[in-house]
């Protein structure tokens, strides 16, 4: 059972545009949502995260918007740069959870 869903699978934007990556989850006990960024040939690395007590988390050009009632969140990348081209994984875990559940990822392509 897939508990974390991401859309779209692939997204292409022009340099300078805002990229919006979507994520939804099913388990209402999830309360921590990290986003990982992965470049080709490398392992994923934590980009930004949010806990369920917040509805927004900002870090430079990266912002997470969180809607607990609808069990949805989104990652907004403003002023997208070609260097942002990567795969982005939305993930979820609960308090004292033994593991993090990863979505299948969104491949982002930023064209110069």
């Amino acid at each position, binding site marked *: 059972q897939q508990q974390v869903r991401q859309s779209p699978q692939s997204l292409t934007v022009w340099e300078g545009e805002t990229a919006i990556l979507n994520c939804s989850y099913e388990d209402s006990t999830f*309360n921590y949502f990290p986003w990982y960024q992965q470049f080709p040939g490398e*392992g994923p690395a934590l980009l930004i995260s949010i806990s369920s007590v917040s509805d927004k988390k900002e870090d430079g050009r990266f912002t997470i918007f969180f809607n607990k009632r609808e069990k949805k969140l989104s990652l907004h990348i403003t002023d997208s740069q070609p260097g942002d081209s990567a795969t982005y*994984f939305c993930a979820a875990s609960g308090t004292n959870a033994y593991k993090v559940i*990863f979505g*299948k990822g969104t491949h982002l392509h930023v064209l110069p």
Partner: protein
Amino acid sequence: EAAVTQSPRNKVAVTGGKVTLSCNQTNNHNNMYWYRQDTGHGLRLIHYSYGAGSTEKGDIPDGYKASRPSQENFSLILELATPSQTSVYFCASGETWGEAEQFFGPGTRLTVL
């Protein structure tokens, strides 16, 4: 800085052969994980460990064994490799459960012929 290393980085094995993937972390994290990444499936958890001497089954443990002989080292063992186990394998470490960052290694690309 957190450091997770994996060896080998690339491996070609024959069907029915034994394969051991190794992972070392210098973060002194209690928790370690093995994932595989396949197109269309994202990251799937194979085995994890709470600390030296412990191993636990993840979501897709069939065909894999794990070993955690020390805090620093966590191995993934394929006793009888099959072509369906061709994938990229990632090791990760993390400090606590719940709200904790996982630090990933660079991955091992395994091809089983």
